[in-house]
């Protein structure tokens, strides 16, 4: 019996001689192949290409030739790079904590609101759907002097002197950051709300019976249990602020990154090096540096915030 069955199987094609496990593997890789090829061609190959370009002096008009670490030496000696570097980190260390704090407070209280809950949540989410260009235009008007600018109107009404905002080298960066924070709030609130909802109600009830105050519940139960959500949002929003570009580019379109480079982030510098000066090799080196910064910061954050 078994000999006959064996012979029959052996006479079939290669496919019929394979075990069920082998067939499953082939099917799985068959399906995975499409996104894999796409990723390799669209993502990974250009990434490696950027690494290669960063050690060449390619400028579109001239073929690329190997220059070693020349681009990196030039970058680290460039005072503009260090200013941009400082700006980028200002966006990060101001933007991440401020946006997380505001979105947590909003989510924490919105979670308790039953009246028009979905509508309010939708309102908060709306800026996230808006294009950065439109948003930047509106905020640019907000920052205008009296009588156009709403903010200066209010300040004037309160008897406070008018502020230059986007025209001042010290105020411009926070003024650009504000709409960026505002735009990201909706997303962060939704994620925080989901995190809050995932905490079982009985945890709070047990805490109430044990006599914890609202503050103690927040400190000892809510925030520790929100940690996975918090880690995700910190990493996600840090990457967002390190890569800030469209908010800056659009709010000051006649002098992007100005005044006097005081709002210019790294990505904008890369953009200008590549597509205004056409120094592709130099821009690629900047990209590699940005990549390293993102990688290091993300890894450090994950390390610090993992189980402690």
């Amino acid at each position, binding site marked *: 019996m078994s000999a006959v069955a064996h012979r029959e199987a052996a006479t079939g094609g290669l496919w019929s001689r394979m075990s069920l496990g082998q067939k499953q593997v082939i099917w799985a890789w068959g399906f995975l192949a499409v996104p894999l090829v796409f990723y390799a061609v669209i993502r990974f190959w250009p990434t490696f290409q950027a690494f290669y370009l960063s050690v060449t002096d390619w400028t579109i008009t001239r073929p690329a030739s190997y220059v070693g670490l020349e681009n990196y030496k030039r970058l680290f000696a460039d005072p503009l790079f260090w200013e941009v570097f400082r700006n980028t980190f200002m966006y990060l260390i101001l933007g991440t904590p401020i946006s997380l704090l505001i979105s947590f407070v909003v989510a924490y209280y919105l979670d308790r609101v039953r009246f028009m809950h979905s509508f309010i949540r939708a309102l908060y989410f709306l800026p996230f759907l808006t294009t950065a260009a439109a948003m930047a235009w509106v905020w640019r008007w907000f920052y205008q002097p009296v009588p156009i600018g709403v903010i200066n109107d209010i300040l004037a009404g309160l008897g406070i002197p008018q502020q230059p905002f986007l025209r001042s080298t010290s105020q411009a960066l926070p003024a650009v950051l504000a709409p960026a924070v505002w735009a990201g709030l909706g997303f962060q609130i939704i994620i925080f709300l989901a995190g809050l909802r995932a905490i*079982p109600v*009985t945890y709070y009830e*047990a805490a*109430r*019976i*044990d*006599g*914890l105050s609202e503050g103690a519940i927040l400190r000892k139960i809510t925030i*520790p249990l929100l940690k996975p959500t918090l880690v995700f949002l910190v990493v996600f929003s840090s990457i967002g602020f390190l890569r800030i570009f469209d908010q800056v580019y659009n709010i000051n379109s006649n002098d992007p990154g100005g005044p006097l480079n005081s709002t210019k982030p790294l990505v904008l510098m890369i953009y200008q090096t590549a597509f205004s000066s056409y120094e592709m090799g130099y821009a690629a080196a900047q990209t590699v540096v940005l990549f390293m910064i993102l990688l290091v910061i993300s890894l450090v954050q994950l390390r610090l915030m993992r189980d402690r």
Partner: protein
Amino acid sequence: MATIELDRLVKRYGQTTVVHGIDLSIQDGEFVVLVGPSGCGKSTTLRMIAGLEEISGGEIRIANRVVNDLQPKDRNIAMVFQNYAIYPHMTVAENIAFGLYRSTLSKSEKRQRVEQAAETLGLSHLLERRPSALSGGQRQRVAIGRAMVRDPAAFLFDEPLSNLDAQLRTQMRIEIKRLHHRLGTTSVFVTHDQVEAMTMADRIVVMRDGHILQVGTPLELYEKPVDVFTARFIGSPTMNLLPATLKEGGAELSTGGLIRVSPPSAPRADVLIGARPQDLVPSSPDTPGLTVSGNVVVVETLGSETLVHIENAGQTIIGSAPGRQIPKVGEHLTLHAPLDRLYCFDKSTEKALAIR
């Protein structure tokens, strides 16, 4: 330790009333089980005692003190939840110590209390573990430890065994019972499982649709159910109910046959005659009582006894045979229950009638 009194307790959600003015008095040190199908208001009642739900009407007194408007923390009660409610980011010791959050004891005294509770519950070797490393039964013990450590006036249990598997449930049932014997703390236990209620309770409170149907010891409920609902709810498998008509000299079953019972004080026409499967055994009808016969349709062998389902005039009746005597399916069988083991209920009001 304390007494708990419910006085015309009402709970309304908007237009819907879920607890209809119930009265209950729980003695100091008593273990009371609230039992009923889901949605009967038992959990709501417990949560009102705990202070987690506001009271819409009536009064709750714990240790003779009205607690209607007191915060849960000021009622000196401890609660054990169905999903344990122990915190995943804290160790077992920290979780148990959480019960002492408001206590003014010194650190070493708290530590001692925690260790004592852990010892009682057999958790001593697990104190530094996280809940994720514990089994379901151990987690529930941690929750009980957190409740115990404070030495509360009363324990409130909200279906604490429902998330455990059958074997563990039986074991935890005994552990909670033994713990109650040792501590002697007043306990209110909510469950939908009548076996849990029967095995654990000093007194059982049967609830349905926001009303208390009957309060009594497990045996009282088993022997003298006041209505059809309690009769069917308590005992497993459920009581057989056979429609009958009361007549001069006895009750005539709708399937034929007369049971010689002394008619109740106020004669009623239609009744239900009840017989528990355990009382309905294969035997010859030499004593007065209920006799039914029919073909065996299903046999459930339990080892200690054998449940026999027979078909009698379109109705399936469950009886029991001794463990080693297993009737065959299709066999004709006569079951008999003595007169003093029968129950009688008014068919329209479903209230029990005295027939003995």
